[in-house]
């Protein structure tokens, strides 16, 4: 059981990396970005494409491929926001939803056209392929690295949020974005940069996780569902909530495999539904 908990913790951190960008984007722009999983997938394919160019499967080339992929995905997000999404802020929310759905379709097909439909395996850098043995449990080095990257991302995000004016603006916009405009601040650039950063995080997660599993064009749907679950359980727009939710979901999954294996698929949706309903009860009580 300890092994599963430890496992769940590291898996949870990877879930957090996936969900962080989604919740950030929603918190500020109120856009439910269905394309988040697609951007994750694109990040993985870019890493696959860039690694050989950057020197093969060494840690250095992997690290630079991850960073570069994330930047490219972030730039794509920026372009997409400025060219398309920006035109329909203020219009019905559903339009934004359809636009991000359109991006899902486009990215899936573009990825298929460039890299083909077959599964792809990004080679694991040799020095990351081992495992630490704690007691009887193996902890893959790679998951430890991912955990560390997750910690770095959290630290960076928390520092930016706490100590910079950009962070203050973001938190203010999460509270009441209309009021931010009424203090003379153009929301457009906040939205663009938040969208770009959110996409960057999706690309980062995808590129980082690429060597740890299979990469194909179906990754988008597999990822977006889990990302939604984590973001919803954590409370839409809340980074700390997403972290707690991601770690909890990771651990519940680990334990679920032992205690209720056949329920594991439906379990996370039951939890998601339960969390939503319980939260609504809580809110009702407060408003009374």
């Amino acid at each position, binding site marked *: 059981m300890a092994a599963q908990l430890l496992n769940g913790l590291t898996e949870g951190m990877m879930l957090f990396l996936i969900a962080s960008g989604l919740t950030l984007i929603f918190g500020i722009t109120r856009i439910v970005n269905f394309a988040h999983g697609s951007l994750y997938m694109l990040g993985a394919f870019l890493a696959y494409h860039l690694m050989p160019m950057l020197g093969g499967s060494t840690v250095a080339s992997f690290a630079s491929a991850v960073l570069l992929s994330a930047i490219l995905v972030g730039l794509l997000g920026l372009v997409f926001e400025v060219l398309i999404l920006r035109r329909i802020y203020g219009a019905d929310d559903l339009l934004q*939803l*359809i636009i991000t759905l359109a991006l899902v*379709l486009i990215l899936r097909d573009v990825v298929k056209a460039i890299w083909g439909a077959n599964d792809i395996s990004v080679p694991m850098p040799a020095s990351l392929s081992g495992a630490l043995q704690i007691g009887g449990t193996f902890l893959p080095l790679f998951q430890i690295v991912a955990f560390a990257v997750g910690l770095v991302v959290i630290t960076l995000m928390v520092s930016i949020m706490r100590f910079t004016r950009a962070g203050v603006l973001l938190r203010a916009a999460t509270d009441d974005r209309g009021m931010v405009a009424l203090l003379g601040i153009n929301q457009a650039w906040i939205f663009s940069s938040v969208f770009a950063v959110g996409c960057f995080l999706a690309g980062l997660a995808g590129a980082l996780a690429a060597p740890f599993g299979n990469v194909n064009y179906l990754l988008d749907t597999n990822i977006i569902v889990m990302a939604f679950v984590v973001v919803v359980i954590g409370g839409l727009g809340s980074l700390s909530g997403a972290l707690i939710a991601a770690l909890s979901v990771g651990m519940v999954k680990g334990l679920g495999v032992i205690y209720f294996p056949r329920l594991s698929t439906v379990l996370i949706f039951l939890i998601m539904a339960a969390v939503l309903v319980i939260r609504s009860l809580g809110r009702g009580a407060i408003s009374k």
Partner: protein
Amino acid sequence: MSFEHVQSRWLFAAVSLGLAVAMLMLGPGIALLATEVAIMALFASSLGFLINYGGMVSFGHAAYFGLGAYGFALAAAKLGLPLWLAVVLGPLTAALGAVLFGALCVRLTHIYFAMLTLACSEIVFTVLFQAYDYTGGDNGLTNFMAPRFGLSPQIYAALTVAIVALCIAFLARIVRSPLGLAIQAVGEEPHRAAALGFSPRLVQLVACVIAGTLAGIAGTMYSVFQGNAFPDYAGVGITIDALVMVVIGGVKGFYGGVFGAIIYVLLKTFVSRAFTHWELVIGLILIAVVLIFPTGIAGLLQKLGLSRTARPSGEQHP
């Protein structure tokens, strides 16, 4: 297509009847496609009703489509009930599902409502997918009946169009009724509606059950049409299709769903036959449509003066 005047009611009946009769003269291929369009039009309209009148955006509407399909198919295939009874049980199952899920979901608003509906439909999907001893799992339920009750494509198309027209006329009546006005009032401003003496949650629940039942009718008709049922019918893909239909049809008024279904089903069918990379083409078309006609087709018609009210108004000045 406002129903406040008697003429438009007659016009609607005449158009529906005309369409149904026209189905009998089509070739079988077109009749099959028309049937699909009509079923999706009903499904999208039921979602459009929920969104545009009830103010509730659902990401899980396919749950009722799936329940409608499986309620019928399980009754026919596993319980061996006569088809006429099974056909009634389909929408009934969806209605029961809507009571259950609706009661949970209306506690929430906005995106949280949407997410809870998504969770509910994923639960339905997963149960259908995994409980294979009863549902056939991913292999679904097949070969338990002749598709379309063995009716010819044309006759079934005419039947479908007639049923869909009745359902939409029913929706239109609901919208005009005091209940419909209450649904709109709650959809627009729950607090004010509460002040007017409605219980917002009850009104929303009723709206969910109406929409869910109509979605269930669509699901049952689809199951009969195909002669099968698969977990996909409750999958998020069908919800997304319906959302797209509602939006491109026009996010005002439920009949946008009808336009949306016609356009989107035809678009998806023919683009995917013409292009290998059909997803790319459809994605680009969707973006273009949203940017060029942000009010959808219904909004466009209204701009051109072809339609009087984009959204029947429940109340005027406060």
